[in-house]
């Protein structure tokens, strides 16, 4: 039997600004059998999405098919009449885009949207479609499947919406599902819930799937075969176990080395406890902050009662899922968002909550590195102007002194000195992030607030930035507050870790202590949710108690009690949801905020 999808020497060209055509997909061939999942993996710009879309006979504007064949069930999709192709799309091949939130219409009910294409194309009538949708809701393990169809998109969580996208795509019983980075924008705990649902529904429905992603660890969980792409060419193609366990090509090995090892204790220990007697470089005390105008009562509280201290020369990783308040913490420390209560201390001196009232020397000592270098660098300024300003502003350097300093700075972030004459749009993403870092370093700061500095970058580029940060730290002795949603990144960089959940610090301490038992239940959930580059990991993880209790629950910001109550496997009803948990000092550099005692944690960890 012929394969369901055969891509044969596919060539796709892109039209450049001056009208010439440049090849971006250069002779890619692979097959996809029925009931099989093939993953396309590569960095941005490798052509993976372009190839996936060719299965629908679609090329994005500016792209042209210039050769090869894409045979779906034996018929070439590229030369099909547009009417036939219309039949193909949506009925036999369904596409699932990255962002579910952007794909749902907020004004229509979920049921209408899930069944829409199946009904429109006349594959089934309304009642059958709704029944089919309900079956899919159950298969995807969505809550309340009987009534889910009558709800609106804003009434379900992001992970549920992502699974509903799969229901939408599968409703018309397609033969092939094209999934484009379906879990990239999700938090780790949400990601595994979605992955598991996708995997089981694909098995149940017997559908074939083309899975596009840049994340090798995700691929290991879901794919039968893997196509590794680089620069529009296939680097390696084989079964998942071969590619992951015995990679042949150098690029695959490079990709694998950029996958950070799962967070474990003892990965990173540069500093010892000897600094601890000094006054901390930065201290946050009883901090409560939030947004909204008016008095503190009416405003939305994003952070509640946060206490953190950063020792001189240490780096503190702040970890949590989206919405937990980690960026807000950085904004409060920098003074962009004045705190409602509590104080920020620099070397023991209280800083004014509002940055407008802080001294220039205090401002100089705390520098902020923004997440998106694309938007944090003014596109109208040249690099030398961007880097020169802090020198002039804080250190009073004159025009003639600046070029030398700028050249030193560029060397420090490992960029050639002639970049000084460029504009930000002439740099790649990783280079921009280096400039972004350099600008913060120009001020000779004592504290660097790094807000998700590598989350917008490809894995290899991001790994390089982390290496650079480590070297910079050694050379300059700057203290870091390193904010990330990625526990592996934090584990490889930070001396201390602060785990935030719904605006509260649930656990903090030195990296080795936080990443080893006893854990706060949330920390344990976070650690176990980080995908490992190992086939079969997903199934094992889903069997653990913390996953059963904590996956697929909505984060609730509560005014009383422990916010993690509804997801916690150790929750004590009547206590955890009524009273604020006490802070337990396990050791002098490890604190857990929980009603459960140290012994109970240990007992649970060994269970």
């Amino acid at each position, binding site marked *: 039997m012929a394969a369901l999808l055969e891509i044969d020497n596919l060539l796709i060209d892109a039209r450049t*600004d001056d009208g010439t055509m440049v090849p971006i997909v250069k002779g890619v061939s692979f097959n996809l059998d029925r009931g099989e999942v093939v993953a396309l993996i590569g960095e*941005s*710009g490798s052509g993976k999405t372009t190839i996936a879309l060719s299965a629908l006979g679609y090329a994005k504007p500016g792209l042209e098919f210039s050769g090869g064949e894409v045979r779906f069930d034996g018929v070439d999709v590229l030369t099909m009449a547009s009417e036939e192709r219309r039949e193909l799309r949506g009925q036999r091949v369904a596409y699932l885009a990255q962002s579910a939130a952007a794909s749902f219409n907020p004004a229509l009910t979920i049921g209408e949207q899930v069944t829409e294409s199946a009904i429109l194309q006349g594959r089934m009538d309304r009642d059958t479609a709704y029944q089919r949708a309900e079956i899919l809701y159950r298969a995807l393990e969505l809550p309340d499947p009987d009534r889910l169809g009558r709800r609106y998109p804003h009434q379900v969580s992001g992970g549920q919406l992502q699974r509903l996208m799969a229901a939408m795509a599968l409703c018309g019983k397609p033969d092939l599902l094209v999934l484009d980075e379906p879990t990239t924008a999700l938090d780790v705990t949400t990601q595994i819930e979605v992955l598991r649902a996708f995997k089981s529904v694909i098995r149940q429905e017997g559908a074939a799937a083309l899975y596009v992603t840049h994340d090798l660890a995700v691929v290991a969980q879901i794919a039968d075969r893997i196509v590794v792409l*680089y620069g529009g060419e296939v680097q390696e193609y084989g079964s998942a176990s071969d590619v992951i366990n015995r990679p042949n090509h*150098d*690029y695959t090995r*490079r990709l694998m*080395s*950029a996958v950070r090892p799962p967070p474990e204790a003892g990965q990173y220990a540069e500093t010892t406890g000897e600094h601890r007697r000094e006054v901390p470089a930065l201290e946050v005390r009883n901090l409560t902050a939030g947004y909204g105008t008016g008095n503190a009562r009416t405003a939305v509280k994003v952070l509640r009662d946060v206490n953190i201290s950063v020792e001189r020369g240490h780096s503190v990783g702040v970890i949590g899922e989206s919405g937990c308040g980690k960026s807000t913490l950085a904004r409060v420390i*920098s*003074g*962009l968002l004045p705190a409602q209560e509590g104080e920020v201390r620099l070397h023991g001196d209280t800083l004014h909550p509002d*940055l407008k009232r*802080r001294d*220039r020397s205090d*401002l100089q000592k705390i*520098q*902020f590195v*923004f*997440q*998106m270098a694309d*938007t*944090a*660098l*003014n*596109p*109208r*300024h040249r690099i030398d102007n961007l880097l020169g*300003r*802090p020198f002039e*502003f804080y250190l009073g350097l004159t025009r003639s002194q600046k070029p030398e300093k700028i*050249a*030193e*700075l560029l*060397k*420090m972030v*490992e960029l*050639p000195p002639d970049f000084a004459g*460029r*504009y930000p*749009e*002439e740099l*790649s993403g*990783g*280079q921009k992030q280096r400039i972004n870092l350099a*600008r913060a*370093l120009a*001020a*000779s*700061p004592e504290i660097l607030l790094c807000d998700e500095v590598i989350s917008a970058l490809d894995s*290899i*580029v991001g*790994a*390089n930035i982390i*290496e650079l940060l480590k*070297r910079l730290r050694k*050379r*300059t*002795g*700057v203290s870091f507050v390193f904010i990330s949603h990625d526990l592996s990144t934090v584990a490889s960089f930070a001396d201390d870790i602060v785990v935030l959940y719904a605006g509260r610090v649930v656990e903090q301490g030195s990296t080795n202590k936080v990443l080893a038992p006893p854990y706060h239940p949330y920390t344990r959930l976070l650690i176990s949710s980080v995908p490992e580059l190992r086939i079969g990991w997903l199934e094992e993880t889903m069997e653990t108690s913390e996953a059963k209790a904590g996956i697929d629950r909505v984060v609730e910001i509560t005014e009383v009690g422990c916010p993690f109550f509804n997801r916690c496997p150790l929750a004590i009803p009547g206590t955890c949801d009524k009273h604020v948990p006490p802070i337990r000092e396990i050791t002098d550099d490890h604190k857990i905020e929980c009603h459960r005692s140290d012994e109970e944690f240990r007992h649970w960890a060994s269970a």
Partner: protein
Amino acid sequence: MSELSNSSTDGNRTAPTGSSDIDHANPVAGAGSSAFEELPDAPPRRKIRFSIAGKIAMGVVAFWALMVVFGPTIAPYHEADFLDEALFIVPGSDDPYPQTDFQPPSGVAYLGTDYLGRDTLSRILYGARTTIGISLISTFLAYLVGVTLGIMAAIGGVVLDSILSRVNDAILSMPTIMLGLVVISAIGSTIPILIMLTGLIYASSVFRIARAFGLDIMVSDFVEAARVRGEGIWWIIGREILPNMIMPMATDFGLRFVYVILFISGLSFLGLGVQPPQSDWGSMVRENLSGLPYGAIAPLVPALAIATLTIAINMIVDDVSAHSGGKLAARMI
């Protein structure tokens, strides 16, 4: 961070210590480590590309710009000159025409004469300076007022923003030409009054755009970065906000200029704009309307002048707007 000053020796990109981010993973056989350097490469700097229509339009605008400067110098007659009857001789005889008004184009008056027997070409050339000059100064005035207030509203807080925006809404809600008519009939029509009036009326639409851009840019990360650095408000306005407003606002400037030309011409057409004997394209259309039944081209020539200039500016604006991804056009409405 005193190491910064002596980092030049060990921070070199090609030094073995400093560049492990590329080399340490593995040296790729054959291709060398550069093959897998950070992707994608730097995109080339974008340049505005003009379409054929855009290039022709630039020619037209350049032509009118020259006419503003040299028009009165090269005009065959003064704008207020009545042509002598003796100039118009009936071909094949010595008899002059009975009248000099609405004469067809001839060697004496290349574009014919108007309702009083004045040379249309000369009046167009003189009128170019009046019409374009007044419009340009008015538009600049509108920008000065509009951008200043717009940025004030964008950064000045809720109260100031509300006051300025509501006053602006009130002005915008009045039809411009009616507002112009009322003010001019109350205080009379001189060129300075005309400029002030037009400038202030159009400042209201500039205000809206400037405020919208200002608000947009104020919340961008690079402004936040400047604020967190401790920069003052003037530095943020001058170095962060204005440079990012210039391109989009320049496109708007072209469109706004066109509206102002049409407005001034409209006022002149109603007899409230530029006063005779000074020529102005709008009033020239009105004066010569009575010639239309006789097939005179006198009312058509100034109308054509207005059309060529405004359409040409629009063409250029289209190209500039397309360069920025067409987003501008949507935001300007």
